[in-house]
C-alpha cells in the first residue's frame, strides 16, 4: 500500500503555522513515517506532483491570482484542511476589510499601478469547500498531529469548539477577568491553546477565533458596563487576528456603528 501524501500550501500569511509542523520535533519522524511529504517547499526542495491525499492550506485570499490558485489546490486535494487564523478567518490582514485598500496602496507604494490586490482578505472556505478547519494564530502543533492522526485513521477529526474558559478551569488557572477585571475573550473564543495566555496571567486575545454559539454581546456589555472599556477599545478587542470571523466582525461593527 502506498503511503498517503501530504502537501502544504501557502497563501497570504506569515508562515508561522507551517513552521508549527517543523516544530513537531519529537513527532516529525513519526509524521514522515506515516505520510509521504510530497509538497512542502518550506521543508524540502523536492516537489512531487499531485493529487495529494491531504492538503494543509495556510493563509488567506488577498489577490486575484490566489483566488485562482486555491481552486487548483482544491482540485488536487483529497482532504483540504485550512490551518490558522488567516486561512479560517482572513487573519490580521482582514483589517483591510474595514478600510480603503486603494488609499493604502496609493500611500504605501511608489508605483501603485503594479499592485494587484483584492479589496478584502478572506478565508479559504469563502472560495472552496474546506473539509476541516484548524484554528489559532499560530495553530497548536498537538492539535495538528491529532487531526493528521484522525485523517490517517479515516476518522472525522474531532476537536472541541467550546470556550477557552473550559480548558482554563480544567488547568486550574485563576481567572484574570474576575480577579483583575481584564477584558478576556476566553468566554467567546474557541479552545485549543490550553488557555495559554491566562496561564501567563494575561487575558485571552481570541487568536483561535469565535467558539461555537459565541455570545459576544454579553461579553462586550460586561466590558463596557463593568470593566470601563470605551467603544474604541471594544473595536480593537474584537479586531485582531480574527477580525474577519463573522461573530467578531459583527460585534466590532456594532461598536463602530454605535449600534449597541
Amino acid at each position, binding site marked *: 500500500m502506498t503511503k498517503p501524501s501530504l502537501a502544504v500550501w501557502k497563501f497570504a500569511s506569515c508562515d508561522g503555522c507551517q513552521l508549527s509542523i517543523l516544530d513537531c520535533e519529537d*513527532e516529525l519522524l*513519526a*509524521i514522515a*513515517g*506515516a505520510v509521504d511529504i510530497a509538497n512542502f517547499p518550506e521543508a524540502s526542495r523536492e516537489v512531487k506532483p499531485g493529487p495529494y491525499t491531504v492538503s494543509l492550506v495556510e493563509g488567506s485570499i488577498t489577490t486575484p491570482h490566489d483566488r485562482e490558485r486555491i481552486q487548483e489546490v482544491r482540485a488536487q486535494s483529497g482532504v483540504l484542511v485550512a490551518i490558522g487564523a488567516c486561512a479560517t478567518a482572513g487573519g490580521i490582514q482582514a483589517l483591510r476589510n474595514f478600510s480603503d485598500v486603494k488609499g493604502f496602496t496609493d500611500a504605501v507604494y511608489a508605483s501603485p499601478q503594479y499592485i494587484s490586490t483584492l479589496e478584502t482578505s478572506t478565508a479559504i472556505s469563502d472560495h472552496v469547500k474546506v473539509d476541516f478547519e484548524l484554528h489559532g494564530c499560530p495553530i497548536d502543533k498537538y492539535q495538528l*498531529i*491529532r487531526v*493528521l*492522526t484522525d485523517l*490517517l*485513521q479515516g476518522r472525522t477529526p*474531532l476537536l*472541541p*469548539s*467550546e*470556550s477557552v*474558559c*473550559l480548558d482554563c*478551569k*480544567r*488547568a*486550574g*488557572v*485563576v*481567572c484574570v*477577568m*474576575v*480577579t*483583575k*477585571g481584564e477584558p*478576556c475573550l*476566553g*468566554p*467567546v473564543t474557541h479552545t485549543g491553546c490550553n488557555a495559554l495566555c491566562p496561564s501567563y*496571567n494575561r487575558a485571552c486575545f481570541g487568536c483561535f477565533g469565535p467558539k*461555537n*454559539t*459565541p*455570545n459576544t*454581546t*454579553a*461579553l462586550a*456589555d*460586561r466590558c463596557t458596563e*463593568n470593566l470601563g472599556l470605551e467603544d474604541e477599545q471594544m473595536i480593537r478587542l474584537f479586531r485582531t487576528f480574527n477580525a474577519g470571523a463573522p461573530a467578531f466582525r459583527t460585534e466590532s461593527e456594532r461598536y463602530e456603528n454605535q449600534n449597541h
Partner: protein
Amino acid sequence: MQVYRFEADALNALIATLRERGYKVIAPTPMDGAVVLGEITDAGQLPRGYCDEQEKGVYRLKKTDRDAFFDFNVGPRSPKRYLFPTNHVLWRSRQENGRLEIYSESDDEKPFAFLGIRPCEMKAVAVQDRVLSKGPFADRIYSNRRQKALFIPVDCTRAGKTCFCTSMGGGPEATEGYHLALTEVIDENRHFFLARPGEENSVNLLECMQAVPATAEEIKQGRDLIEKTAACMGREVNTAGVAEMLAEYRDHPHWEEIGKRCMNCTNCTMVCPTCFCFEVEDHNDLTGQNTERTRQWDSCFNLSFTYQHGGSVRHTNKARYRQWLTHKFSAWHDQFGESGCVGCGRCITWCPVGIDVTEEIQMFQEKTS
C-alpha cells in the same frame, strides 16, 4: 465530645506529621491573586494575613492587618479537583502482531489530606459521594481517592458576600465526614485553634500539636465566632418550593432573558464543587498501534454535551442555562434526594459576567407568584 485547643504555630507540626504519614497535604494557598487549593509542605504557604472580597463576577485578594491563617472564603478550586481529576487516562491499548492488548491504568496518586477546606466543601464531598461512590455504578477513581483521604476542615469565622450555605441546609461549622474539625480564634492577646476529633478517631493527630482540652471560655469564643458568621451570609435563597417551581416553569420567558446574558462559557459548572459531568475520548498515535481512553471534566453548557446524530439537543443558551439551574435546584432532588447546591457562591463569583443563581431564583419567585 471533648474539644481540644492548640497554639496557632503548631500547624507546622500537623503538616509535617501528615506528610510523614504519607499524605499529600492539600490546603489553601495564595496564587495569582486568589486563594486556591494546592499542595503545601509548610504552614508558611497558607494564606496568612490575606482576605478576599467577592461579588458577582469579581474576586479581589487583599492583605489584612490580622495574622489569621483562615480569614478568607472559598476560592475557585475545590476538593473535586483532587478526588475527581480533571483529566485522567482510563486505559491504554496496543496492537501487536494482529493482537490487541489492553492495559488498565492504575491510579498511583498518594492519599490526600485536605487541610483548611470549608464546611460547605465537606458538604459538597458528601453530595459527590452520593453521585460517584454510592449505588451500583461507583466510580473507581473517585471512590478510591475518597476512601484514602483525610479531612481537616476549618470552620468559617467570616462569611463572603456570595456565600449562602445557611440557606442550603449547611452552615459555617463542619458537621459531617471530618477527621478533625478546627476553629481559628484570634484576638489581641491570643491565636489558637479549637479542634473537634471526628467519628473516625483522629485524636492521635492532636499529639503532634501538643493539644490540650479546651476551657469552657475558649469553646465559647469559638462558638460566638461561628454564630456571628452564620448571621451575616452575603446572600440568601428561600428554597421553599424552588424545586417544583423550576420544574413547572420550564417555558417561562425569564429563561430567554438569562440566555441573553449567559455566554455558555462553562465557568460556573467547572467551579461548582458538586458538578460531576465528564466526557470520554479515545486517541491514538500516528502509527495507529497505540490508543488511550481519557476522561475529562465536561459541562452541560457545552454544545457537544447533548450532541446526538444530527445535532445538539440543547443548542440555545437558554436551554443550557435552564439545564444547569434546574439540575442543581430541582432535578438533583429527584435523582439523589437532596439539592445539588451547597451555597458556596463560587458560580456567582466566577461567572465572568456575574450571573447570580440566587438572584435568578428570586426573579422566578417574583415572576411566578
